[in-house]
Each structure stands twice: as structure tokens, then as C-alpha cells.
């Protein structure tokens, strides 16, 4: 009573020190929140730095391309008025000569050539040659002098390409990775047949990933069932056989497959000793010794071996939670073992199947080492092309664009999966 009298009686609930309860509570909660945020801050910063930033940089690099804009600034401003019907006027060529002289001085000509060559095959060497000879042009008419160096400068397509490169941002890389390009008038069209490869690579990447996922499911599901239903002692021993390879490095396992699969390797000798090679030859399936190494078959088998535990373990952990009573009930109601299994048991394992398959599929999309080591040139997946764009071609735009396409494909798949199965139904363990 004494407390209540000391405080103003305005109907507000108060804490012991007299501050309104609402304020005190909010303050306490804010402190809690800050503490919680402090705990997750290191991980949050880590994710921003190591995951979000690189993805943003990648998205940016897929469309950012300043090489031509930086090195031919006057040409580009002179080209602004050009409508593309006839050859550009004399001023454009005059500006071009000035730009090229400067670029030659700074040794940037080859970069311009390299960039233009992505769009006009074979122009790089002509740009470099022009850079070498342009110094000799002292006085007008520039147009005739430049075209005299190489007739590529007398073609509208060349200038249209330069004009298109005037912005520092370009859809070129993304289009190219879908085997598309912009024509002279800016319309989007398909690449000529001999340059169409990336659409195939994307289909191949999805196809191999799908095949690997399906195979791991076919092989993994019965094993998971065996593991989940065996007595504890047997199950632990079986589990070791699944986990031991799982704990072994991917590189080691891939190298092991190389040794097994190579010509005159273990497999090929086994097939030969057992007479299988002879039989296959007899029926005309193969001519000579079977080829395993550097084939799609080897790629899928090696990837399947590596991915098997990823599919199997989520299925196993879901199966462990399914009570045997359901099956008993189904059988007691007159279901045959097969019918009960398909109608009662299998639907309950779906969350595990979905989780395992999604995991394997998405990991498979990014495979690089295994196809590179046991596959042939036509078994390389998108990651392999990203590697070669960075390491062999120094083409960051292309590498980024391929990365973006892989990212988009993954997001679309995830979306479809969420619609079909529902991400909340997924159980990893």
C-alpha cells in the first residue's frame, strides 16, 4: 500500500523503480535482442562477405564490360549520331584513328580486339594489325586510309558492334551463354551453329545431375530400407560401409575411379579375364576392348558413388522414424506385402526422398573435378567451363554469366520443388 501511494495513481502498471512496465519490458527485450544479434553477428558478417558479396559481384560482372568504352571514347561519342544504314561518316574514322593511336601507346589495342572478337570471330588479329599500322595515318581522308588497312572497317557490322559496346553494361555475355547474340540492328537471334555450345552444356549439366540423382535413389533406397529395418548390430556394421566412403575425400575417390576405369585398368582386365569382353565382341556391342575411361558412363558412375550417401542418409533417417506398426496394420487389413509397402510405407518416406534427391541434384549441378578427371571433353559440366573461362581465357564476363545461369537454374528448380513437394516437408534427419 505504501508503494502504491508513493507513485502517481494514473492507472499505468509500473516496475519496482517506478518506470512504466511497458518501457521497462521494452528495454529488457531490446537488451536481449542485441545480445542475440551479437551472437549471430560473426556468422552474419561471414555470410555477407563470403556468400552474398561474391554473388553480387558475379551478377555485376556478368553485365559489366568497359573495355571498348574505356579505350575508344571519342569513336563512341562520334558514333552516337550514326544511324547504321551507311558506313559511318568521316568524323567517326578521324576519332577512331585518334583513339587507336592512344590505345596502341597504352598497349590496350589487344584488349579492344579481344572484346570485339567475342562478337565478330577473327577480328582480334585485324584490330591488332590496325593498331600497329594506324600510326602512319597523319592526315585526312581517314576513312579511306583506315579501310585500306583492313576491309573489316568498311563493314557496317563492325561499327554496329562498337556502337553497341558503348555502354559499360552489356547483355552480351548472358545472351552468349544461352547461345544467343544481338544482330546488327540490335535484335536478339541465335548464334551460328558452330558457336552454339552452352545450351548443350546446360542441358548436359542438368541431364547428368538428374541421372546421378535417379541412380543414387534406385541404389540408395533399398540400402536405406535395409539399414532402417535390420537389427541394431547388423545395421551399425552396414552403416560403416556407407559412411567410410562418405568420409573419404572426393579427390581420392575420383582418382580411385580413374585407376579402376582406365584402359587396361582393373575393370577392363576383369572383363577380359571373365570373357565378358569376348562375349560383347561376339554380339557386336563393342569392337575391341570396352572403353570406360573418359566417357559419360564413367562420369555418372563416379559421381553416383560420391553422391550415394547424400541421397541415402536423409532417406534412412526418415525411415528410422516410421513405426513398423503401420505395415502390420496394413497387412492385417489384408494388404499384400508389395501393396502395403507401396501404399503405406513409401508415401511416409517421401520427405526423406525429396530431401536426399534435392541435395544430390543441387550438389551435382556444381560438379567440376570428377567430370574433369574421368570424363571426356563432351562430359564437362558448367563448372568446368567456368574454370576454363577464368583460368585459360581470362574472360570474367563469361565466367560470371555462366555462374548466373547456373544460379538461376538452381533457383528455378528449388522453386519448382517447393511448389511440388513443399520445402517445409523436407527432412534432412
Amino acid at each position, binding site marked *: 500500500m505504501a508503494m502504491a501511494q508513493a507513485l502517481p495513481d494514473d492507472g499505468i502498471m509500473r516496475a519496482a523503480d517506478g518506470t512504466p512496465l511497458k518501457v521497462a519490458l521494452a528495454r529488457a527485450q531490446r537488451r536481449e535482442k542485441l545480445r542475440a544479434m551479437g551472437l549471430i553477428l560473426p556468422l552474419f558478417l561471414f555470410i555477407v562477405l563470403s556468400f552474398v558479396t561474391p554473388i553480387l559481384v558475379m551478377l555485376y560482372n556478368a553485365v559489366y564490360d568497359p573495355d571498348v568504352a574505356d579505350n575508344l571514347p571519342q569513336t563512341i561519342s562520334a558514333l552516337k549520331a550514326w544511324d547504321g544504314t551507311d558506313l559511318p561518316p568521316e568524323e567517326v574514322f578521324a576519332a577512331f584513328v585518334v583513339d587507336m593511336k592512344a590505345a596502341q601507346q597504352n*598497349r590496350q589495342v589487344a584488349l579492344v580486339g579481344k572484346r570485339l572478337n567475342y562478337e565478330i570471330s577473327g577480328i582480334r588479329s585485324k584490330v591488332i594489325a590496325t593498331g600497329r599500322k594506324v600510326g602512319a595515318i597523319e592526315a585526312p581522308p581517314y576513312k579511306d586510309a583506315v579501310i585500306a588497312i583492313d576491309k573489316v572497317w568498311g563493314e557496317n557490322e563492325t561499327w554496329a558492334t562498337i556502337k553497341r559496346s558503348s555502354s559499360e553494361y552489356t547483355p552480351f555475355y548472358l545472351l552468349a551463354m544461352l547461345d544467343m547474340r544481338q544482330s546488327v540492328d540490335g535484335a536478339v537471334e541465335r548464334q551460328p551453329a558452330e558457336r552454339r555450345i552452352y545450351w548443350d552444356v546446360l542441358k548436359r549439366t542438368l541431364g547428368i545431375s538428374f541421372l546421378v540423382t535417379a541412380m543414387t535413389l534406385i541404389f540408395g533406397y533399398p540400402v536405406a530400407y535395409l539399414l532402417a529395418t535390420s537389427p541394431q548390430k547388423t545395421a551399425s556394421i552396414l552403416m560403416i560401409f556407407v559412411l567410410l566412403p562418405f568420409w573419404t575425400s572426393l579427390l581420392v575417390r575420383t582418382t580411385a575411379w580413374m585407376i579402376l576405369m582406365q584402359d587396361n585398368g582393373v575393370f577392363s582386365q576383369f572383363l577380359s579375364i571373365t570373357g565378358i569382353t569376348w562375349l560383347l565382341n561376339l554380339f557386336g556391342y563393342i569392337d575391341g576392348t570396352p572403353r570406360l575411361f573418359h566417357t559419360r558412363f564413367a562420369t555418372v558412375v563416379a559421381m553416383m558413388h560420391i553422391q550415394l550417401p547424400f541421397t541415402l542418409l536423409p532417406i534412412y533417417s526418415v525411415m528410422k522414424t516410421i513405426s513398423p506398426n503401420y505395415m502390420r496394420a496394413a497387412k492385417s487389413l489384408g494388404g499384400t506385402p508389395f501393396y502395403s509397402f507401396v501404399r503405406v510405407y513409401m508415401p511416409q518416406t517421401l520427405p526423406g526422398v525429396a530431401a536426399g534427391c534435392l541435395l544430390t541434384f543441387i550438389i551435382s549441378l556444381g560438379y567440376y573435378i570428377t567430370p574433369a578427371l574421368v570424363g571426356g571433353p563432351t562430359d564437362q559440366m558448367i563448372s568446368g567451363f567456368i574454370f576454363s573461362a577464368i583460368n585459360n581465357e581470362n574472360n*570474367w564476363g563469361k565466367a560470371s554469366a555462366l555462374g548466373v545461369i547456373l544460379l538461376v537454374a538452381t533457383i528455378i528448380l528449388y522453386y519448382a520443388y517447393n511448389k511440388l513437394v513443399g520445402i517445409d516437408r523436407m527432412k534432412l534427419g
Partner: protein
Amino acid sequence: MKKFSLVLVAALLAGTALATTARAADELTVTSWGGAYQESQRKAFFEPFIAAGNKITEAEYSGEIAKVRAMVEAKAVTWDVVDVDTQTALAGCAEGSFEVIDWGKLGLDKAKFIGGDVSECAVPNILYSTVAAYDTSKTADPASLFEALFDQAKYPGKRALQKSPFVNLEWALMADGVAPEEVYKVLGTDEGVERALKKLDTIKKDVVWWTAGAEGPQLLADGQVVFATSWNGRFYNAIKNDKKPFKIIWDRQAPDWDFWAIPKGTPKIEEAYRFISYASDAQRMADQTKYISYGPANMDSAPMIDAAILPDLPSAPDNLKTVFYPDPQFWGDKGDELRERFNAWLAQ
């Protein structure tokens, strides 16, 4: 080129450099092609240079100029001296990836070096040659290089070729009936490139593509292929040191230079010059032939070379009978385009 990514790469490279080894200020990073070749350089140049009180860190690559370009563009140059082939020297020079060489500073006479005027950014060190070889214990002598590479009826089995259009396209055209002196005229056109690829199509499914020079001899030793191409010194090493029963096909051998080049913007340019000058000494270049069968570019080395190795050098008269000289300028100018086309062909 001021690319955002490159700043990031620079940061990453700097980070790795700090994390792995804090590079001593006077430590020179020399990058070469690994394997038996780098071993010969180690014995002939690196070890005596280190013994004379210098420090060298070695790195290896497979001729990917992209790595040098990325460093130069990111202004995070960690390779101070790089061993490059001719087309890399020319392309890198044109793009400003390499320093222009000051021969006066090197204290060397350019005229004394075979190929000294090929590129203003590079100092020639050896003459090597791209050749094919086979295992005499398993394969009968082929009549010509083209029979070895393209006649599958006579020599069934796989072939190991370099994963590069360089020399492969020329060989394919010659095998298809183009006269050697016409090769670059034909290859300069789109039709010519398609013709070469079409010829390679006939063996495409039988080709194992290699990137590092040591792979060719290795694939041959493992019996994975019936014929392998590589650089002649690699086969020499397998024959002499590993006692493999290999035989080099000198028919249509394709000689080329290797050079020392300095990536632009290295902080150790003085040391780089000192090393190149040291490694270009006539006696040391002659010493290198004790370990590998490449011809020294320094003409003064010729009288100092041990006579025993002379028949194994690409320049031996017997080996030069049907030599084919690749055109470095052609590759310096068109290399990027052809590599792109070649890679697209490979993936199809």
C-alpha cells in the same frame, strides 16, 4: 581494365599471399612449365643462383597466359619471371602484360640470341619442339607422323594430343594434303580452320587431351595411348632417365622458342633482370643441355655443348629433314580466336 572482380581477386590473392607465406622482400618467384623441364632449369640456373646468395620461389603453370593477365590487371603480380612460349610472349606483349625488355640493362647482346628480335618483351632461352612419340616395345615404326596420328586402320587405339589448337591444326591440315608452305594461308580463313577441325574430327573420339607436358610421356608409359605428343625434352627425359623404350618421330617436328618474360608491374623488376641475365649466360645455358635436350638460344653456347646430346636436339640435321616451322606471329595475333573456336569444337 578496371574490373570490380579484379579488385576482389587482388584482395584474395593478397590475402592468400599473406596467409601462406610472407614473401621475403628479396625472394624472386620464377614460374615455368614443371616436370623435367623445370628440373633442368633448377639444376642449371636456380640452384647456382640460390647458391650465389639469392632466393627463388618456384611456381608451375601450363602456359595459361590468363593467369598472368589476371595478375597484371589486378595489380597483384606475384610471378616475377615467367617462362613463356612464342605465342604467349607476343600476345602478352601486345596486351601490355609483360615489361618491355631493356637489353642494355641485361648486359646482353641481342644479336647473339637466336630469336632475340621475335618479341620486344622476352629474352629467348631455349629452342624446343613439339613432336610425337611411341613405345617401340608395343608399336611398329610408322612411316610418317600423319600415319601415326591419323591412320586408325593401321594403328588402332588412342592418341594423346595437347589440349590446344597450336600445331594440332597445322598437322591436321598437312595430313589433309595442304602443302607446308600453304598452311598459314589456309588456316587464316574460316574455311581453313573448319577443314583442320574436320580432319581432327576423324580421330576426335580416340584423343586423350593433355595440358601439362609430363602427361604425354605418362600416358604412353601407362599404355593408355599408342602415340603421344609432347615437347621433345619430355620424351628425352623418359628415354634417358626413366629408361622407357620410346622413340621420337621427328617427321614434321614443330620447333618453337621459350623465353623469359617479366609480368608488368612486378615489384622485383631489378631482381628479375638480374636472374634473366644470370640464366642467359652461355656456359649456364650449355649446362642445361646436360639435363634436357633443348637447344640453348645463346649462340655462344654452341661450342660448349656436350657432343653426346647433339643428335637429340631439335636442331640436329637428321631431325630437321621434314621440319615444319610454326609461324609465331600468326599465333600471337590469332591464338585467342583459334583457342576459342577449338574449345567450342572440343565441347561439341
